[in-house]
Each structure stands twice: as C-alpha cells, then as structure tokens.
C-alpha cells in the first residue's frame, strides 16, 4: 500500500518532531522579535554613568552656537574628570534669566557654577550668596567684577578691540571711512565697551589721521525678540546710514549683516568685520562678503572653565583671570577653518 510507508511509526515520530520544532522555532523567533521591538528605554533598567561632581553652566542665550560650542568643549573636559556639566535652563518650560538660573543652581546644591557674568547688582549678590554657600563661581567671557567670583575665564576684550581696529586700518588705508560698531544695549555688559575702546584707541594711535575715521557705535536691544536683525536691516534700508565698515560683536548681528548686505546688494560697498565662526560666516568670508571675523577659541574657553573650577576645588585658590586666545579669520586663512569645521561637525 502506498500510504503504508507514510504512516509507519517512524514517519509519524518524524512528523511530530518536525511539527513541534516548527512551533518552537516560530514561537521563539516571534518572542525574540517582540522583545527586540520592545527595546524601549526604561528608567529602571538603563545603566547610567555616575559622576563625582555636578557643575552648572549658565549663559544668557542658550541657542547661540558659540555658547553651545563652549558648553560642549567644557562638557568634554568635564568628562575627563568625571564631572557632569549641566546646561542650566535647557529643557525648561520657562526662560529664566541668568540670575534666576543661578539661584536655582544654588538651591539645587551644585558643586560649581560657570556663568556668563555681567555687572548687574543682582547677579553679583547671587554670586556672593553662592560663594557663601561654598559653591565656587567662575565667570566666562564677561566678568562680574563686583562679585566674589573665584575666577574669570575669557578673552582680553581690549586686545580684541585692537585686533578689530587693526583690521579697520588695513581696509581703510588712506580713505575717509564711516565705521559702525554694533553693540548690545545690554549696558551691564562691559565687554563690548572695552572692545569699542580698543578699536577707538587703535584708530586714534595715528593722531595725524584723526579725522579720517568716523567711529560710531549703535546699541542694539537684543532683549527684544528679533531686535538685532531688524536693527541691522534698518541700517541697510536707509542709504545715508550705510557705513563703509560694519563691526559686529556677536554671531547674530554678523549673520544678519551678511544677509542684509546680500539682500540689499551692498556686497563690496560695506565691509563687514564679524565675530565668531559659524558655517554661514566662514562661507561668507570665503565668498568675500564678510571681510573677516574674530574667532574666540571656544575649545580653550570651555576647557579652561573646568580646569579652573577643578583647580579651585582641589587647592582652594585659583588665578583671578584666565585668558583664551582669539584668532582673526580672513579670506586668506578661512580654508583651514572650513576644513576644521567640517571635521568637527563630523
């Protein structure tokens, strides 16, 4: 009989075994698949890296790519020493001021604070409170001179002004020039004043050409939303007010000035000297829309902050002032920065 072989006991056993194996494999794979698809972050199961110290990093404009870069370099430095650097105010539903964030940091009992200083009384008082509560405070880029902060990490603003001034001299040569410096109306910020002084002093060094340069400063209220961009556009819209050289002291105004120069077809007429190195700015220098930009070495800045805090925590005292380098980027040397930037973004 044909079916006899098919139905012998041996065949039946094999059929059963294969059948069971299929079921086991199917069920197993589906369970494994589901388990994998269920790879959801669970707070109880994820292993976290523990840190020894918790520092707070407080700046005014968290969205600024410059501050972001500084924060990243500082964080990377902190990792080396097993320090967690918190970007205060990030992910918060409310936009707190620096003072408020500092207060929160104090209340949160952090082990150290890195803060973009200013000369306001409230901030100074809060810094003093923090210091009283054994929380070391370091100001970054702009100081809070009246406070008892442990140290200041920044660039020499006067020096920076001198660099700007020299660049103006290079552009101006013998011609008569209108020079506009875009400054923050945030008057507590002394940096810009010092930079301005640096520019002025450089230009005035040559007393013979005193009348050749008409240096003016425009205060931009960067507290009002989109104020910077509107102000820059206003300058370009009014033909009479367009200066020959425009000095921008932060990233937003540089980018705005560049965009406005392109939009109003003033490329070549206005020489823009910017600040900071974003992709846009570097590209603009490469296309010679922006004459030059001054880059603060944010890697150094971030690194020095952590190092200074560590030094204070370890030894109890630290140098009052730590300086980071500044670089002038022109169309001649922008190439290496572009490559470098590509590398870092990678």
């Amino acid at each position: 009989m044909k079916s006899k072989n098919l139905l012998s006991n041996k065949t039946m056993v094999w059929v059963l075994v294969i059948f069971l194996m299929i079921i086991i494999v199917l069920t197993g794979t589906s369970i494994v698949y589901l388990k994998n698809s269920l790879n959801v972050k669970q707070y109880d199961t994820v292993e976290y890296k523990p840190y020894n110290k918790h520092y707070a990093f407080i700046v005014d404009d968290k969205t600024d790519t410059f501050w972001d870069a500084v924060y990243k370099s500082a964080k990377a430095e902190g990792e080396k020493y097993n320090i967690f650097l918190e970007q205060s105010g990030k992910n918060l539903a409310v936009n707190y001021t620096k003072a408020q964030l500092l207060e929160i940091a104090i209340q949160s009992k952090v082990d150290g604070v890195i803060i973009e200083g200013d000369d306001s009384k409230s901030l100074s008082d809060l810094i003093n409170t923090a210091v009283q509560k054994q929380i070391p405070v370091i100001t970054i880029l702009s100081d809070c001179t009246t406070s008892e902060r442990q140290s200041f990490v920044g660039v020499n603003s006067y020096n920076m002004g001198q660099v700007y001034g020299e660049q103006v001299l290079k552009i101006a040569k013998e011609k008569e020039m209108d020079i506009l410096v875009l400054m923050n109306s945030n008057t507590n910020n002394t940096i810009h004043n010092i930079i301005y002084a640096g520019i002025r002093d450089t230009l005035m060094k040559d007393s013979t050409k005193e009348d050749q340069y008409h240096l003016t400063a425009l205060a931009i209220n960067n507290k009002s939303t989109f104020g910077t961009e509107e102000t820059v556009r206003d300058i370009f819209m009014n033909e009479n007010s367009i200066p020959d050289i425009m000095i921008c002291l932060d990233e937003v105004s540089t980018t705005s000035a560049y965009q406005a120069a392109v939009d109003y077809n003033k490329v070549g007429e206005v020489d823009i000297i910017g600040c900071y190195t974003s992709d846009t700015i570097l590209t603009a220098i490469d296309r010679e829309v922006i004459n030059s930009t001054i880059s603060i070495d944010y890697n150094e800045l971030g690194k020095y902050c952590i190092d200074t805090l560590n030094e204070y925590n370890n030894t109890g005292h630290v140098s009052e002032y730590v300086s980071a380098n500044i670089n002038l980027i022109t169309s001649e040397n922008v190439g290496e920065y572009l490559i470098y930037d590509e590398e870092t973004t990678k």
Partner: protein
Amino acid sequence: MMRKQPNKKIDIRFSIQTKLIAVFLFTSCILLAVNMIMNQNMNKMISEIDKVYISNVNLNELQSVLKQVQESMSEYLNTKSSDAMESYYKNEDKYIRLIGGLNEQIVNDDSKIIEKNIKNMSLNYLEVTDKTIEYKRGRNVEKYRVSYEQAAIIYDYINTYIYSLNNEQFKENTKNYQLLLSSLKYSEVINTGILIVIAIANIILILLFTREMINPIIKLAEAADQVAKGQFDIELVKVESKDEIGVVTKAFNQMVLSIQVYIEQIKKNIELQSSMKEKALIMENHLKDARLRYLQAQINPHFLFNTLNAGAQLAMLEGADRTYLYIQHMAEFFRYNVQNNKECVTLREEIELVDSYIYILNVRFSGEIKFVKKIDETYLDLKIPSMILQPIIENSINYGIRNIEWEGVIELLVFREDNHVCISIRDNGIGMSKELIEKIMNHRLKDKDISKDSNGVGLDNVINRLRLFFSCQDVIEITSVGKDMGTEVAIYVPIEGEKSNVQNYVSR
C-alpha cells in the same frame, strides 16, 4: 489466572475514542500553549504600555502634593489655624516621601539631573517653609514675610522644573508608547500568523493520525467487498490495532475462516449424497442385470409358467400326483421369478422359493439332496433383497455337493447373533479354497468359472446387492474349513437399523 493478569495489563487497548481524543487533545494543547505564550507576551506588552506614563503620573502627584504644601503653608500664614498646620505637616511628610523616590546621583542623563535638582531644591524649599511656619508661630512678622517670599520663589522654580521634566518625559514616553503600540500591532499580526500556521499543521497532523486509524477500516472494507462478491478464498486481513477495528477485523477473519469450513462441509455432504445416489443406481443396475439374465436364460417365463400350469392340470387329471406336485413346484419357482419384480422381499418368501427349488432338484436328481431347515420363525418377516438365497443354494449344490460320493446335506439356519439375524447356508460338499473365497468376495470371479447350469444369478451379483442393500461390507461371509469339509455362507442382517436402512432404500 494470576499469571495472566500482568499480560493483560501490558496489552493496553486504546479505543478509537481514546485515540481521537488523544489526537485532538494533543493538537488543542499545542494551540492552547502557543496561544497562552502569545497572550502572555501581549499582556506583558500591554502592561508595559500601562507603565509608560507612570513617570508622568508620579510627577503629577509630586506637583499636586507640592501645591498642597504651599497652599497649606499659605493658609496657615493666613489663618494660623491648627487644621492648616496639621495639613501642612501631613503634606510635608507626603512630599518628603515622594521626593525620596527621586534620583540623587549625578549621572549622564538630563532628566535624572533635573530630578536631582528638584530634590535638592525641594529640600531647601521645605527648610524655608519650616522656617516660615516657625517665624509665623513666633510672630516674627518681618522674617516670615521674607521667608514666605523666598519659599514662593523656590516653589515657583520647583514647579517649573517638575513641569518641564514632566514635559520631557511625556515626549519620551509618547515615543515609547508609539513604539509599543506599533509593536503591539505587529505582534497581533504575528500571533495570527503563528496561529494559522499551527492550525494548518494541526489539521495535517489530525489527517495523518486519523488516516492511521482509518487505514485498517479501508483494508477491512476491501476484504469485505471481495467476500461480498463471493470470493471466500481471500488473504486474512492483518490485525494492526488493538482497538474496536482490531476486534472487528479479528471477527471478520474468523467469519471468513468459518465460511470456508462450512463450504467444505457442504461440499462433502453433496459428494456423500451423490455417492448414495450412485449406489442406488448401481443396485438397480444389478437387479436389472439379474433380470436380464433370467430373460436371456428363459425364453418366456410367462409362457413357461402357463405351460407348466397346464402340465400340472394334466398330471392331476391323469392322477399322477407326484408329477403334479413336481410341476406345481416348478410353476411356483418360475412364478416367483416372474412375479417378483420387487427388490425387497420377506425371508419367508425367499425360503419358500428355496423349498421349491430343492424339491425340483430332488426330483431331478432323485432325492440326492438332503435339505435341513433350522429357522427361528420370529425373523420370517425380515426384509431382505430378492433372489438372494436361491442363488447361494444353487451355488452350494452345483459346486459343493454335486459330485461327492457321500450324501449331500444342505442346512439353512436362521438365528440371532448379537445384533444380527444370521442366515446361514451350510453344505457338506467339497469346500472352497481360501483363494476362491477371496476371489468371490472381491468380485474377481471370471465368467468362465460360472457353470452353464446356473439360473444366471451369480454369487457375485448376490454379494453386491447385499452389500449395497445394507451399506455394509461385512454383510456376507463365506467360510470353508478345508477340502471336503463343506462350505458355509452366512448373511448377517442387522436388526438395529434394519428398518431404517430398508426404508432409506425404499424411499429412493
């Protein structure tokens, strides 16, 4: 008995029902087990989904308790009621318990750091609120106001932090939720797929199992079909299973065997019947043969008989009594032959014929033969085949006592011996050799041995008819002690069964 029991135990019988139940149970169990595993998985996922928003729930609770702390503190500051104080301490307790669950380690996760900040701020906040309550109690108006404001600020910060954390976690949780939801959908599809595959596999399995069970039935049906077509000589169906089908198969095999045996028996019976019919035909044939010989020997018995009667009457008229008697006997003798067409007659009639025959011979040979009869008369009505005794006596006279020099005596004896009636005819003649007796008994006597003087019915014929009539080989016996010592021919008629034998014979 005791030995057989363990054998019975080993010989487990699974009924078809048990087998079917086992198959269905097995497949159902597999289906059920897989389903259960799948369901468990699903449940796990669903509970996972339930858990997704638990962190939000916890944060909401934290926030509401914090609010209660702040509110109860404010109320106390407002009213200084002991109720408010009680509720403040209660809420504070609760809040402390809740923030105990928050992270306090410095780890590389923003949410965890926010949790740590919330915890630290909360501890500060509670310190401040405690102080505020204390100042209020101590009526230190200036201090409790400052302290209250500070608490309010911190409260605000904490609230913002909790709110923000809640938001962040909600985003994360929603992502997880969607992930879970999509995988749940996938798992539903997979589950259905697996169940379908298993269902198909189960059907195949059931098919195979039931075919195993049904196969013997099919074989049995084929065999039964052959039997129904009249082909009994089939191969016996192999008994493979020990279930009901096995029982039926065994019974069927037994039936087929029985049918074969019965058919064999019926065949034998038919053979027996035909042989008996054959016997009857042979018998009839022999009788006819005897009668034919008579007809050949005697030209016309009726004519002879009538002639003899006429002679007898003439003799009586002439007063020749002896002649009359002689002719009368002759007439009797021939009448017997003519009239007696019956196959079966009484012993009495046969003896009368013998008497007539002896008388005729004695007249013929002038009283040379002495005939002695010793007859038990109770057996005179015994039924025997006709034309039996006369040929035997004729034989005795012709071959036994014809040429002897002493007086020939022929004895006819009828007596009972055990279950038989013995009819014995003895002579004191020359006797017979054993070879001759054997020849006669085995029908090897040749025609030339038969004397021309005989009436034609030979001993051979007599023996055959006797044997056929009584269906017995030993019905006749011829004995002779030796030369000149005489011969005895004995016929043994069975008393028991005699009647039935005769009846059987007659009915045919």
